[in-house]
């Protein structure tokens, strides 16, 4: 009889399997059941936070595909989310298309513009790429404000409510399932993408582009593909954002939002799916954490009362980016991996 003390992988296929062990399947199944039953017993505020996290997870996955897997710096992610959100808003409220058509159109329009941005950006690397994408974000923000016939300009624009078989999803707990299903689909999609030929090509380009080209990876095609897919996912996240908020405004999609998504993937861990999820949820929860700390310190020191405002959250994002980059480059995913290994190897932890 063969006794196995650990998971052994005997072929490449086993190494890239979607679920490595039975236990992972079980845990994910239980977690999904927990999420699915949450509206029955959960607090509405928790559901609202999970809704925000779902949008963030989808957006962060798109960005991580581009930055973490392909190694292309982009500061224009908020711009693509804006494109998606505005496409959804215009198609749903002015044209009256159903939600699935709006979402696909959002992804499609964002992907088309991402394709357009990807081609001139092919020649750029590092700092140049960061500056080019950042300027794209600035220009798009100006376009959203100036082109007010289409976008409503500084007045913003309303997004029509989703109706599913004539049944409107008009509250947080109703839209919850909609967001959850899309998030799970996007996670599965990207998880599958990165274990295929395309995903391996992305990673090869990130690690060493010249070596990748020598190995026969078509850098041009794959870089543009990374931009396009990342924008497509961002567009879908934008559509989800539009439907959840019901109203969008150019101010929602500034450079700060791009930086917030960067914070998610850096804190979570670059180039990992689980990391994007951890990071997105963590960054969504940071403001709650700070509010909690503020409330607690008000109790201890009455002089601090009323000193809390939104700015502290942004300062915390900046501080988190710096701390994680200096002290824990692997992000939360790295910490999680270490904890898991030390439990697995117990008592031989080192």
């Amino acid at each position, binding site marked *: 009889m063969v006794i196995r003390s650990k998971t052994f992988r005997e072929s490449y296929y086993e190494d890239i399997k979607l679920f490595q062990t039975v236990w992972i399947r079980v845990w994910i199944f239980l977690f999904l059941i927990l999420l699915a039953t949450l509206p029955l017993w959960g607090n509405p505020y928790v559901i609202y936070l999970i809704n925000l996290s779902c949008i963030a997870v989808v957006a962060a996955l798109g960005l991580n595909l581009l930055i973490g897997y392909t190694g292309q710096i982009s500061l224009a992610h908020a711009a693509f989310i804006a494109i998606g959100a505005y496409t959804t808003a215009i198609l749903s409220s002015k044209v009256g298309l159903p939600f699935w058509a709006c979402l696909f159109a959002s992804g499609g329009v964002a992907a088309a513009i991402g394709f357009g941005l990807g081609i001139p950006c092919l020649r750029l690397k590092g700092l140049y790429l960061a500056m080019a994408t950042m*300027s794209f974000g600035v*220009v798009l923000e100006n376009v959203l404000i100036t082109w007010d016939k289409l976008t409503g300009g500084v007045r913003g624009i309303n997004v029509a409510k989703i109706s599913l078989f004539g049944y409107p999803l008009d509250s947080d707990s109703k839209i919850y399932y909609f967001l959850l299903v899309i998030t799970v689909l996007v996670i599965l999609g990207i998880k599958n993408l990165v274990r295929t030929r395309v995903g391996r090509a992305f990673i090869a380009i990130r690690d060493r582009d010249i070596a990748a080209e020598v190995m026969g990876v078509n850098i041009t095609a794959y870089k543009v593909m990374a931009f396009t897919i990342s924008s497509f996912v961002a567009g879908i996240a934008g559509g989800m954002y539009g439907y959840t908020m019901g109203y969008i405004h150019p101010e929602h999609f500034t450079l700060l939002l791009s930086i917030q998504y960067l914070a998610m993937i850096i804190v979570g861990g670059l180039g990992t799916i689980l990391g994007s999820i951890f990071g997105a949820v963590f960054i969504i929860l940071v403001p709650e954490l700070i509010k909690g700390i503020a409330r607690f310190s008000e109790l201890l020191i009455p002089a601090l009362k009323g000193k809390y405002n939104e700015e502290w959250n942004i300062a915390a994002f900046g501080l988190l980016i710096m701390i994680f980059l200096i002290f824990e480059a692997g992000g939360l995913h790295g910490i999680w991996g270490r904890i898991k290994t030390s439990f697995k190897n117990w008592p031989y932890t080192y």
Partner: protein
Amino acid sequence: MTSGFLYFMQLFASGIAVGCLYALIALGFVLIIKATDILNFAHGEIIMISAMICYFLMAKYQFSFLTAVLITIVIAALMGVLTERLVLRPMLGEPIFAVVMITIGLSIFLRSLAGITFGHDNYVFPSPFPKEPIHLAGITLSMTQIWVMVSTALLVIIFFIFFKYSRMGLAMRGTADDQETALLMGISTKRVFAMVWGIAFVTAAIAGISLANVMVVNIGLTFTAISAFPAIILGGLESIPGAIIGGLVIGVIENLVGGYLDQAIGGGVKDVTPFVVLFLILMIKPYGLFGKEEIERV
């Protein structure tokens, strides 16, 4: 002179004045990129914070303009050295993405701290320059614009002399050229980096004070740094003369477009022009006029 030509010259002259501001901002970016290969995204925050400090020194603590400027410059230099020591030094040898991201993190951290300390109000800087404009051969320029041009020119001359003749300047050029060889030659690259950050932050402080004289002082001053990007790209990332020329050219183009096309097409063209120029340069000549060219196929 015909009135058409005069109009052109007027736009050109005020374009040069705006361009000087771009050049000042670009100078700070390029100094850091040249020596350390880091694009400091927090530059705009330093510009804004310096302007704020100078404003508060003058308005609240009743310092004279010159003393306030001197104190601001000293504070900026200290901030530069501290930033290098605390934030950038641990990142030595890390991939470029991480370094870019850490300056972005620093930028939003500083911006929100500034928002918390200084508030979000608009302040009007008590400008020491007389309000009456000056007429030169039919062209009208304000005193502030002339002072901005003069101080930019002075700063450029000082930098030229510093880099050409001083020991530290030579060490900096050596480090920018090749870090390892500079280390072997006995140059303390750590000290050079700290100095570079200090000097770059001082140029940011001067740019901030100049901007404060022509604009309202508020948190939004940070975005002026982003509008200097086209100037840096045009000049090439690693070239100091490039930064100056790029700044002047972008300033003039922006003003000419604003003067001629804004009525024809409608508002907002002026603000977007520098970025359109940026995209064009990146597509045609990605390493700018004087940048270090790295030839590679994609």
